[in-house]
């Protein structure tokens, strides 16, 4: 049995220890917001947070996160940064097909947690790990700035 805390809820899962976290999240726990795109940590669609760090769940064996705290797209809206990012995503109508967007949002939230006021260069560097075939990159950049500004204003109030 492997023990996981996902979005604040505890789970005991009985799966092959080498199963990637992605498939445990999607199939065992039924949280399908986290996506499969490449299985090789190349596209970032599977990005989740493990103890606050953005990781690629498609290459992370579930045994390696035993006892860890995991946040997925379904739970990220409960965080300050997550809420700001989701709202900015809606303001800028970022998603097109939407398939990569969970990964984009999880990466963007991790970035804002690390640096609440990132410059373009840092956004580009962090976000270049997540592929978007629809080409929403310009809007992602814009929405991260929007969320960042909103958070700064919120802090002053």
């Amino acid at each position: 049995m492997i023990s996981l805390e996902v979005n604040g809820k505890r789970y005991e899962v009985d799966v092959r220890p080498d199963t990637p976290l992605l498939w445990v999240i999607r199939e065992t726990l039924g949280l399908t917001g986290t996506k499969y795109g490449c299985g090789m940590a190349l596209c970032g669609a599977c990005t989740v947070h493990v103890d606050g760090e953005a990781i690629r769940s498609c290459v992370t064996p579930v045994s390696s996160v035993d006892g860890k705290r995991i946040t997925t797209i379904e739970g990220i809206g409960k965080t300050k940064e997550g809420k700001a990012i989701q709202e900015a995503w809606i303001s800028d109508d970022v998603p097109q097909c939407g398939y990569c967007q969970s990964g984009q949002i999880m990466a963007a939230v991790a970035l804002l947690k690390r640096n609440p006021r990132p410059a373009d260069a840092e956004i580009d560097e962090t976000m270049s790990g997540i592929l978007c075939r629809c080409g929403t990159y310009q809007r992602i950049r814009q929405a991260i700035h929007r969320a960042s500004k909103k958070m700064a204003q919120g802090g002053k109030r």
Partner: protein
Amino acid sequence: MKEIVHLSRRSFLKNGILVGGGLTLGFYLPLRGSLSGASNPSGVTFMPNAFIRIGTDDKVTIIVNKSEMGQGVYTSLPMLVAEELEVDWTKIRVEAAPVDPAYNHTQWGAQGTGGSTSVWSEWDRLRKAGATARVMLINAAAEIWKVDPASCRAEKGFIIQKGTGQRISYGKLVEKASQMKVPKDVPLKEPKDFKVIGKSMKRLDTPEKTNGEAIFGMDVKIPGMLTAVVVRPPVFGGNVKSFNAKKAKAIPGVKEVVQVDSGVAVIAEGFWSASKGREALEIVWDEGILAKLATKGMHEEFERLAKTPGAVAKKKGNPQQVFSKAAKQLHAEYEVPYLAHACMEPLNCLVDLHDNRCEIWTGTQLQTLDRDAAARVAGLKPEQVNIHTTFLGGGFGRRGNPQSDFVAEAVSVAKVIKKPVKVIWTREDDMKGGYYRPMWYDRIAAGLDDQGNLIAWQHTIVGQSILSGTPFDPKKDVDPASVEGAEDIPYEIQNILVDLHSPKIGIPVQWWRSVGHSHTAFVVESFMDEVAHSVGKDPYEFRRKLLMKRPRHLGVLKLAAEKFGWGKPLPKGHGRGIAVHESFGSFVAQVAEVSVNPSGKVHVHKVVCAIDCGRIVNPDTIKAQMESGIVFGLSAVLYGEITFESGRVNQSNFHDYPLLRMNEMPVVEVHIVPSEEKSGGVGEPGVPPIAPAVCNAIFSVTGKRIRRLPIRVEELKKDLKS
């Protein structure tokens, strides 16, 4: 108690789409059935036609017959309905249409999404659907109030009477409106009165695409569902000779290993067990006749063919004769490779097959063809097959497969295992699975007189036919999809010859966002640049002169050039290039600003894009689609290439088939030409001009002409040194 009449969708729709005459309809709509249930606890709804359902809770459901793959149809098409229905935008929900003739494409005679046709092909039908419903609601209110319908108007989900000011919500009219006669020839609004069309409305699908709730084919779960991966032949046209499943079946979670037409399916409790089972599976292949196929050999054959006359696609004037007498001749060869669609969501299909019915969940662009193919495989009648169209994690043409490859295969797996099963393609399966944009080789020549005027144009195209053998096969020597954008070259030239060779190779090919235009724009617009430079002319001015009779081309060309500041000094080491192209009823010009570093790496800094797509429905969607098309095209310019060796596809995943990433994203500026012309498409037309715009810019800054895509960094580096 109210009587709820349950009709099968099919008989309901077959008996005429429009239903009135005392029927209060409650019926099951497949996709998001739970949502429709939640919105209509009583099951009472007003469904004046196949596209609109209004519940007693005032919720307005718009049933969309086009697949949402990012292009925004779940917003733009509801806008057409909402404009005439006069409904509160926040009360709208969208539901995917089931497969039914009522939802056929207005031009195709089958249900499907593609060719950048959605908005213009539904422009009349959906507005009429909205207007008809509005009139029925007005008539219902008027009857309840015993007033003249002419004294009533509709506004944001209410019918309001002018004199008394009394108002009633659509939800409260559901029952009465269902008894109203369906009016004919309801007048539609004048464009000047539009409140919704032409405004940047927020996409209706954004919230669920930011919190993990959006359901793609990959995400659908049904009780008892198994997961399968299919091992397909390493060479197209190959077959299974024999296989040994002993080790695969020993993997915990693996349920069954079965042979199907397309290969061997490993069926398991979940994806990981299936993958492990597949690794343990031993298969001996009969590789078939393509086992020696290699890109190099194909290339040599294409080059040879290009030197011979092909099937004539266009002949104007006397090109050969004028050409031979031209004061100056220019010749060039251009090449583009096979390309994969590489949708972010790998292909997948879930099938629940029973003795007398089949339920399918998938993201498809061609519902009718897929349903019919599923019925054939399952041995059922088409009406016994139901397709639940989910969100598509990208389509770009791949999910509209004329052979229904990913659907037919999944049904064949379900037929053997007799349990609900989802076939998941791995990224590698998807990349190697064929149905590529064809490789093309072009030989092109221009003749100029002694004044530097362009007097003759010859263009020979070599590449596999996309339409041949599909239900869309024109059965002619010239596949229009191979020559679109070349045979209709817009420039004022008196003598033109465009001809075509369509070698039959056996590699599955398919439409890829912008289809033939994805290559013809690159060739024509790059070569036009060569011609301009050869006579010492500015490439923008040269084009303008030859487009004097093409106002819409000229309009976007000028707009893009002006907005970019064509002619103004650029930062040192930067160059600019321009291109203009018409496709899918829209006109797009782009100016790209690039630099090339000493190691040959191209950096695209900025793209200014102008589009004339006729009548505008959702400006922000148009902008998004231009940004999208540009990124899609840039991936092909810089990286995209599927190659073959020993019959095998060399590429497998994003390390050897890279896509543009955020750090390479140029600033994109989009300008829309206001227009009252018939709407054109926007999903594809942003793609064609970007390759020539970028390559023309590279020429302007390096003097090196790119005639083969993708750009080879090493070659460019070498050329920079020399």
